[in-house]
Structure formats: C-alpha cells, structure tokens
C-alpha cells in the first residue's frame, strides 16, 4: 500500500469538510473494496476518511411503506433484520449472499453503491425496487444514481447517508456467483410494486446495472417465468472475461430472470 493519511470523521459534515480540505481524499465505509484496492496499488489517495465513527449512519427503520437502511449498515445486519425479512425478504436474501461472513460483517450498503462495482449485488436491488438514495445534499432516484462503470451521480464530498426502499408486493433476487469471490457473474432482481414490474440486471452490463425493459413489459402483463423465457438481452452490450463470455452472460440473464420470477411467486 502507498502511504496515506487516515482520518476518522465524527459527523457527515466533518467527513465532507475533511474531503474538501485534502488533496485527493477517498471516503471509506466498510473498506471491503477500498482496502484491497489500496493494497494492490490501484489507487493512491492522499487521505482516507473513515465514516465508521459517525453515529446514526447505521441502522434500519420502517417509515410507512418504505424500509430505510442507513448507509453504514452492514450486509450481515440487513440479512438478519426482522424488518427487512418481513417487508422485503428478497433484500435480506441478497445481503446474505454477498461475499462471505467476514465480508458481510464489515461491508456496508452505502459503500457498495457508492463504489458501483459492475458485479456488485446491491445496485440491482436499488434499481429493481426503485429505491431512493439519500445523501447529505439531496435525494437521488436509483435510476439516476448508477451512471456507469464504478461511476455514480455523487459529487465530490457528497456522502450517502441512507437508502429508502419501497416495499414491493413481491420480489426475488437470483445470482450466478463467481465461485471464488461470490461477486455476481450475473444477478437479476425482479420486483412487482406500485410502479409496476422492474427487472434489474447486475454483473452483466458493460456500464454496470441496467433494466431489462422488454422483460419488464412482458412480466407486467403475465408475471410468470414463461413470459421471459424467450426474451434475451443483446449480448453486444455485455461484459466478457475469463469467467464468462458475453454470449454466456446473455444466456444467464434469461435463466436468472426465470428463476427470480419463480422465486418471487
């Protein structure tokens, strides 16, 4: 690791000020991506601003028909939450499948979405459920938040504070995990809610998470696995690597979508 200056923020405003005052600071939530990135010398920030000492950023609450998850809430907490399990079991299920138990004990929802890894799980839940991302400056619809590979709508010094998930009438997430890292080679989040059916795909797209609109309209008129069985996403827009070709990823999107629809019931 290149050296940097570690700073512990005591409040969100303090974190933003510390970023503002440094040459090239990075925010650290759980550090499950940032620390491995630093160890591989893929990033060289002047400062690392730790958000873990800020009180009030972790925790889950139910507000009307929304489940609000604080940005520093760990995957393990989401997976074990009685509120999440009763309101949005698909979200608890997704959190329970991220990485491994030790990663789930440290990794956070805010860190995951701010990083926007194209193979991360949470972006698909945010887009699939039509969530709202709350920051220290504004609220951003998930559809507008994830803007590309490791890119988000966040400005410098803007800190994610919470994610608000509307409660769907039904939802499910299915992923084909990389057997070593448990990142999604393809993951599909399907939800039926008050604004219709959403199908969000992670792991596959060259620009990160995307909505499979043809599948959404098919499911809106007939919510069954048969409705999506013959729909495939264009493979030209998909990632390829040593684990899976674009063609195979396109195939997996349809398979995972069918399984997710079946699981949602």
């Amino acid at each position, binding site marked *: 690791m290149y050296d940097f200056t570690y700073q512990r923020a005591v409040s969100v405003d303090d974190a933003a000020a510390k970023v503002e005052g440094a040459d090239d600071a990075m925010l650290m939530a759980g550090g*499950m991506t940032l620390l491995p990135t630093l160890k591989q010398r893929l990033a060289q920030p002047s400062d690392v601003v*730790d958000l*873990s000492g800020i009180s009030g950023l972790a925790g889950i609450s139910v507000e009307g028909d929304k489940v609000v998850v604080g940005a520093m809430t760990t995957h393990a907490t989401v997976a074990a939450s009685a509120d999440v399990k009763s309101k949005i079991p698909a979200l608890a299920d997704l959190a329970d499948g991220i990485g*491994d138990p*030790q990663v789930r004990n440290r990794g956070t929802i805010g860190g995951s979405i701010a990083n926007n890894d194209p193979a991360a799980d949470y972006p698909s839940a945010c887009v699939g459920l039509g969530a709202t991302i709350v920051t220290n400056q504004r609220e951003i619809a998930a559809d507008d938040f994830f803007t590309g590979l490791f890119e988000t709508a966040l400005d410098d010094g803007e800190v994610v504070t919470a994610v608000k998930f509307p409660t769907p009438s039904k939802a499910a997430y299915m992923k084909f995990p990389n057997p070593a890292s448990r990142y999604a080679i393809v993951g599909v989040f399907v939800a039926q809610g008050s604004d219709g059916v959403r199908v969000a795909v992670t792991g596959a797209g060259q620009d990160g998470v995307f909505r499979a609109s043809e599948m959404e309209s098919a499911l809106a008129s007939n919510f069954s696995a048969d409705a999506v069985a013959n729909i495939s996403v264009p493979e030209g827009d998909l990632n390829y690597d040593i684990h899976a070709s674009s063609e195979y990823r396109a195939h997996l999107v349809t398979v995972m979508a069918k399984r997710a629809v079946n699981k949602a019931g």
Partner: protein
Amino acid sequence: MTHSVSMTVNGKSVSGEVESRTLLVQFLREHLRLTGTHVGCDTSQCGACVVHKDGQSIKSCTILAAQCDGADVTTIEGLADGDTLHPMQEAFRENHGLQCGFCTPGMVMSALDLVKNNPDPSEKEIREWLEGNICRCTGYHNIVKSIKAGAGSMR
C-alpha cells in the same frame, strides 16, 4: 502519518504507534508478536487472518490498525485457558481438523463466530459459513467434522 492506538487484545490492554496504512494483522503479528494469526492470500479471500473484533469475526488483513483504536480484539492466542485448549481447538485436534495447519487459526475463529449465533449448526450451514475460509490442503471434511464436534462440546 503515525497514530497512537490502544486496544484490548485477548483481555490485555495494548497500545502502539502505527502508520495510517498499517493493517490490524500487521499490528498483531509484528508489533505484538502474536503470530498465531496468519496471512495467507492478503487479498481478503482465504480467511487465515480471521480474528474477532468487538465480538464479530473479521479479516484482519482488511482493516486498518488505526480503525481498531478502542476495540476489543480476540485472536487464536486468546482461546486456551493455560494448557487447556478451548473446546473448539480440542475438537480440531481430536478430529484431525488440519493437515498443514496454516488455515487452522482462521478456521477456529470463524467457527466460533458461527457457533455463537447458531449453537447446533448442520453440516450444510457449516460449509456455507466457511465460504470465507480456504484450506489449500482441501481438508474440509475433517474441518467440518471438527466444528460439529466443537459446537457439541460447547453446548
């Protein structure tokens, strides 16, 4: 930049000066000479470095020592009572839950976090829980058997 850190490790108060980039595992091994916690992959995959921080299992190669200021840390050295092994360690010995032994400290620390929340885990639950612990000797059968036995003697 250096930081003064103080934490409780295996019930004892310790402190030291660390760089911003010093990892918890480096602090444990190089500053405190607690070399029972191993570094296998150094990429957060293998789990040889698992310790408990504030009651939860974590990978000590993927957390900064500076982040652990004020924390309560338990390593493999903190389990035995003098010459009497912890029941989970004893179960690994009885069931030959190791071959080369390199992954064992992480396996034991990870197993204890499982058993804390699930005192009678099934074989499937143990195997799923061990997703973050790799045994390069592939000695998983006896590791799973050891954890089942260890959980039994802890109940």
